[in-house]
C-alpha cells in the first residue's frame, strides 16, 4: 500500500515538475480563465440581474472550463514524447498511475481555481469572505468529482482520433450531478444562507466523489493495459 502511494506521488511530482518547467499549460489556463471571467462580466447588464444571482453559474462555468483544459493536457504530455510506453513498462501498479494523474490534475486545476476565485470576486463584486471556508470546501468537492471521472476518461480517449472533442462529449453527463450540487451550494453560501440548508447537496457531492474515485481506481487498469 505504502509503495503504491509512493509511486503515485512520484508520478504526480513528475507531471507537476514538467508543468512547472514549461509553464505553458498553466499560464494558458490562467489566461483563459481570466478571459472567460472578463467576457462574462462585460456581457451582462448589471442593472438587469444582480451579480449575486449570476455568480454561481459564472463561477462554475469558468471552473469547468479550467478542469477540461487540465484534463486535456494530462495525457498529451505523455503521448507527445512517447513517454506513455515508458510508464506502462515500469513496474508500477496501474492504480498508482491513476492516483498520480489524479493528484497532478487536481493540483493543476486547484491553482487555476485559486487564481480564478479572487479575480471573480474582484470583477463581479461579490462578497465571499463570510462564507470562504465552506465555499472552498464545495469547490474542492465538486472539482474532485470532475477530475476523478475526467482522468479516467482521458486515458481512454487519448488513443482515439478526436480526443479533444471526445473528452467533453463523454464527460458532460458526468459533470451534471456535481455541477448541480456545486451551483446550488454556492448560490446559498453567497446569499448567506445557513449551512444546514445545503447539507444534503454537500453529502451528495461527497458521495459522488467517493463512489467515482473508487470506481475509477478499479477501472483505470483496464484502460492502459495493452
Amino acid at each position: 500500500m505504502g509503495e503504491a502511494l509512493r509511486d503515485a506521488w512520484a508520478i504526480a511530482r513528475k507531471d507537476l515538475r514538467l508543468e512547472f518547467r514549461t509553464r505553458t499549460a498553466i499560464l494558458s489556463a490562467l489566461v483563459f480563465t481570466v478571459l472567460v471571467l472578463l467576457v462574462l462580466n462585460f456581457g451582462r447588464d448589471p442593472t438587469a440581474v444582480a451579480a449575486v444571482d449570476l455568480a454561481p453559474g459564472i463561477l462554475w462555468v469558468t471552473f469547468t472550463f479550467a478542469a477540461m483544459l487540465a484534463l486535456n493536457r494530462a495525457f498529451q504530455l505523455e503521448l507527445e514524447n512517447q513517454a506513455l510506453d515508458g510508464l506502462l513498462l515500469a513496474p508500477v501498479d496501474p492504480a498508482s498511475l491513476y492516483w498520480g494523474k489524479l493528484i497532478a490534475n487536481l493540483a493543476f486545476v486547484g491553482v487555476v481555481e485559486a487564481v480564478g476565485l479572487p479575480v471573480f470576486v474582484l470583477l463581479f463584486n461579490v462578497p465571499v469572505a463570510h462564507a470562504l471556508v465552506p465555499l472552498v470546501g464545495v469547490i474542492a468537492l465538486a472539482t474532485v468529482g470532475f477530475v476523478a471521472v475526467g482522468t479516467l476518461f482521458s486515458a481512454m480517449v487519448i488513443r482515439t482520433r478526436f480526443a479533444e472533442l471526445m473528452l467533453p462529449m463523454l464527460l458532460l453527463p458526468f459533470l451534471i450531478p456535481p455541477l448541480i450540487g456545486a451551483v446550488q451550494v454556492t448560490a446559498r453560501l453567497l446569499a448567506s444562507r445557513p449551512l444546514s440548508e445545503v447539507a444534503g447537496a454537500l453529502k451528495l457531492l461527497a458521495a459522488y466523489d467517493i463512489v467515482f474515485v473508487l470506481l475509477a481506481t478499479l477501472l483505470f487498469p483496464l484502460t492502459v493495459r495493452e
Partner: protein
Amino acid sequence: MILLRAGRWTTLAGLAMLAGLYVRALAFTPVERFQGAAQKIYYIHVPAAWTAMLAMAFVGGAGILYLLLRDRRFDRFAEASAEVGTAFSVVMLTTGPIWAKPIWGTWWTWDARLTFTLLLFLLFLGYLTLRGAVTEPDLRARYSAVLGICGLVLLPFIHLSVYLFRTLHPRPIVLQPARPALPPEMLLTLLLGAATMLVLYAGFVMQRMALAHRREREGHAHA
C-alpha cells in the same frame, strides 16, 4: 440466422402491439379531465423512458459481464442495447417537450424527468461515439465496458441531484399534473405501452446483435 429471424418476428409483433396501443390510447382510453388529451402522451413517453433506462442498465450490466467473462457476445449485446436505447431516448426526448408545452406552458424545464431524459440520451450518444472511435475490437469492448459501467453508476446520482434541484426550486406550473391515482383503464393502457416497448426493444436488440455478429464474421473472413 436464427437470431435475426427471431428478432424480425419479435419486431413485427411489437409493431402490431404498437398499432394496438395507439388505437387503445387514442380511441378507447378516457381523456383526463384537467390535463386534456395531451395527457395521453404519457402512454408513449413513460414506457419509452422505462425502456431507455432499462437499455442503459443492460449496457452497464453487459459491460460488467464482458469484463468478468470476456465473452464477446456480451459486448455485442451492449452495443445493440446502446443503439436501441438511443432510439427510445429519441422518442423520450421528443415526446417529453411536446407533453411539457401544454401541461407546463414551456417546451423545456430543468425538472427531474426532462433533465434525466436529456442526460440519458447524451450518455448513449457518448457511448456510441466512443465505440465508433476505437477500431480494435478488444480495446473497444473494454473501453465500452468501462464507460457503460460508469454510466450505470451515474444514473442514481442524476436522479438524486435533479430531485435535489427540484425540491429547492419549486416550479410554477400551468396545469397541475397531480400524481394520478390511475383509473384502471388508464393503468391498463400504460401497461400495454410498457409491454409494447419491451417487445420492440427485444426485437430490435436481437436484430442488431445479429447484425453485429455478421459484421464480425465477415471482418474475420476478409482479414
